[in-house]
């Protein structure tokens, strides 16, 4: 193995240095055959890719997080997958038809697909996967994918055994029928299919404890080999992969602290690592390093508690939006890896309307708006109305340096126009207890004006923007959903409900564009910026192309030049 011999050489060199053969203090590890950009990719070879956190488990249906999908994307396939334009295209499904009434989807599956253990993949595996999600014993966060299907609710409530809306027509054909026309349905099928023959005798309640999580069998381009807890997961190529054998022989996924992984990259122990924006200069001088940037389909924003006496008035929210110099924030903190955002929908997503009302930096206008809203400066130079100072607390979850720096800058911008904002740093689970408050008995309750004033968070769309319904629809205020800003607007309510049943893509897009426009007008969220995710890759790796689907979704196309 090439990597092995390199390490052996490194070891020899290190030993030589330790034993005093060399007194040179600048002993940079030298590669025997430094990769050149002209070298052609070879068949085979292995690759080490780093991630910040270790997967919890490798069953895609147990509370999947991005650290899980980082690995499971390579092991499992889904029926459909979003392409670069976020259109759903087939993966295990070769093609599909939608019935006239828009409720029945018939999938024609790929033939000659085999599980990694050699068993043929059939429509029964698909039926098994999605039926399991409907079972009452299943409680790991995937029921929403199947809930629109006829009969799923009955099964979920324990009133029926079979999801009647899922029909296996033959080994390679399966149909799903939804109760209503449901436009986001397809995107819910973007999740790994698991093998029936290995899991059929296990109650979904026991899935979380089953050995399959630590020793998964999928249909994907790479096959699980071993998992050394706390260190790495090793995968080998599935030479019989139905989309063509991967070029690499082996992929090792390593986990660890970002800075440690970056050091490991510099030392050529790993080939790909995520890199914090502030650390980019430190790797740019390396001749073997290449920066790859992934768009994230996510935006960062300030959310207001609409029940707060100051924020009930949209003029105040607009004034605060005018007071923030987003451009300076982006240039000073994110540089070329960020963009100013004006829309709650990410700008690379089809739901983004390029023509929403914008609030460019204009402190004079901000103050004018506050005065219009009935505020006047008091003796301390702070705006007040009815004897109440415009003072509030911004909750800032820790963990993302860029977000914390942004919050500090915003405080200064607000102070400049006479608004007093306190910052409160807290960890994410703590913030959640404020946004989704509970009664003393542990049940969820309504948000009140006192639970919080404002917060700063990021929001990412997975593929389908239907999730905004739960954030802005007035009937989804906690305890019924995630509208913790308590936003309520009949027009937005109607648009959001209408898009659900709109299967015509262009029309649906139009509806979302209207939502974006109205939300920008009301500015219940102040969109701040979008941030890209930079990765650093060794130049010997060819075909690494991370995007919103994560860094590993196209691993079957990767190759190395040595």
């Amino acid at each position: 193995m090439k990597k092995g011999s390199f390490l052996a050489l490194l070891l020899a060199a290190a030993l030589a240095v330790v034993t005093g053969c060399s007194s040179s203090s600048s002993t940079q590890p030298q590669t025997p055959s430094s990769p050149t950009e002209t070298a052609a990719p070879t068949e085979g070879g292995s690759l080490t890719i780093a991630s910040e956190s270790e997967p919890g488990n490798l069953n895609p249906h147990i509370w999947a997080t991005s650290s899980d999908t980082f690995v499971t994307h390579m092991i499992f396939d889904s029926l459909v997958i979003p392409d670069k334009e976020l259109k759903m295209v087939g993966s295990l499904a070769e093609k599909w038809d939608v019935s006239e009434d828009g409720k029945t989807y018939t999938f024609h599956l790929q033939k000659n697909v085999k599980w990694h253990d050699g068993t043929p993949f059939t429509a029964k595996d698909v039926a098994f996967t999605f039926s399991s999600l409907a079972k009452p014993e299943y409680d790991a966060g995937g029921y929403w994918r199947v809930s629109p299907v006829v009969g799923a609710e009955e099964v979920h409530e324990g009133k029926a055994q079979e999801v009647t809306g899922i029909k296996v027509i033959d080994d390679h054909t399966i149909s799903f029928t939804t109760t209503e026309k449901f436009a986001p349905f397809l995107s819910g099928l973007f999740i790994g299919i698991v093998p029936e023959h290995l899991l059929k005798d296990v109650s979904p309640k026991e899935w979380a404890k089953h050995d399959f999580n630590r020793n998964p069998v999928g249909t994907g381009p790479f096959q699980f080999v071993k998992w050394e807890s706390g260190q790495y997961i090793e995968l080998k190529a599935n030479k019989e992969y139905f989309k063509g054998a991967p070029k690499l022989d082996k992929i090792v996924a390593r986990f660890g602290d970002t800075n440690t992984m970056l050091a490991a990259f510099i030392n050529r122990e790993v080939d790909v690592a995520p890199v914090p924006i502030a650390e980019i200069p430190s790797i740019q001088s390396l001749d073997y390093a290449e920066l790859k940037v992934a768009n994230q389909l996510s935006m960062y924003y300030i959310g207001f508690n609409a029940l707060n006496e100051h924020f009930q008035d949209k003029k105040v929210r607009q004034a605060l939006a005018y007071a923030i110099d987003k451009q300076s924030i982006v240039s000073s903190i994110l540089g070329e890896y960020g963009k100013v955002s004006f829309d709650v929908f990410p700008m690379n997503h089809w739901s983004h309307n390029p023509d929403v009302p914008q609030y460019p930096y204009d402190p004079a206008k901000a103050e004018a708006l506050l005065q219009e809203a009935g505020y006047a400066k008091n003796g301390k130079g702070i705006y007040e109305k009815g004897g109440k100072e415009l003072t509030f607390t911004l909750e800032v979850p820790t963990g993302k340096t860029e977000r914390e720096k942004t919050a500090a800058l915003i405080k200064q911008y607000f102070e400049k126009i006479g608004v007093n904002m306190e910052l409160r740093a807290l960890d994410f689970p703590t913030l959640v207890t404020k946004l989704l408050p509970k009664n003393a008995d542990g049940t969820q309750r309504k948000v009140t004006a006192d639970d919080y004033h404002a917060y700063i968070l990021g929001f990412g769309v997975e593929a389908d923007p239907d999730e905004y319904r739960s954030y802005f629809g007035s009937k989804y205020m906690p305890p019924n959903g995630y509208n913790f800003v308590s936003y309520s607007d009949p027009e937005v309510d109607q648009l959001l409900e209408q898009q659900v049943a709109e299967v015509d893509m262009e029309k649906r897009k139009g509806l979302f564009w209207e939502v974006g426009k109205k939300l920008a007008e009301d500015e219940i969220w102040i969109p701040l910026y979008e941030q890209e995710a930079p990765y650093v890759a060794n130049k010997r790796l060819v075909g690494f192309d991370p995007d919103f689907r994560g860094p590993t979704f196209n691993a079957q196309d990767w190759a190395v030049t040595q």
Partner: protein
Amino acid sequence: MASYIIRRLLQAVPIIIGITLLTFFIMQLAPGNPMQTMINPKIPLSEMQKVQEELGFNKPVIYQYFNWLKEILQGNLGYTIKTGQPVTQLIMERLPATLLLTCTAFLLSFVIGIPLGVYSALHRNKTPDYVLTVVSLVGISIPSFFFGLGLIFLFALKLGWFPTSGMKTIGKDLTGIALFIDYARHIILPAAVLALPTVAVVMRFTRSSLLEVFSLDFIRTAHAKGLSKRVVIFKHALRNALIPVITIFGLSIPFLFGGAYITEHIFNWPGMGSLGISAIVGREYPVIMALNLFTSILVLLGNLIADISYAWADPRIRYS
């Protein structure tokens, strides 16, 4: 002696229960539970609520505690909340790495600390003593994350002598001496970081203890008998001076295990420390509690061993 040990072990039981009770309550004071770290607008809030109820998060803390205690007494450390892994297995996978690291650091502490302390005492108030004093003060006060990153930068990135992180070279099936060298190369930096503060403490302790012994009558007698300086120092003085140092043995165990949290994180060492950090961030109560239980038992055992060896080293001490 046997009855003493049995009594001490019995005393440890209420102490451990007290520790777990306290940590369980402190842990629950931190707002948010594991399910709340996962907001997903696609999952109805009522579903999340149901899961939290099933896991018993809505029950009073004291009820949750006794539930946990009941399982522990049956030998069940529980399962991780989000991924359902058995906690026992999780800890057993990580324990060897942590033991390897802490034992290495432990050995280093005494192998380096004691000779330096002796050297320092023999050169009292001379330049080498001052230098070592300054070094030990720096060693005690330097934050381990800073020292760790510094070592990585210098020895891994600039000099390329050691790997930056991990416990072994991935993808190579080494055996025998090659495997040992591979482990050794990976452990040197983290063990050095972990050992540094203990080295400093052991050194200072040895120095002052030795100086105290030097001023005692029997040392003067030994000199007067015409014994060589070497015999006086190593046979008479040092043996007596090391008795208090033994206490440091016991006390350094919890210190090393605690320090391992940060050191393991920096060096990506696959031990219990890095497990603990991710468990705390993810509010994985069963893992946090299990680690806690484990560490408290270890600390109590460490203290007990220190006391026993104290009696063994100093015949004047008798436990009854």
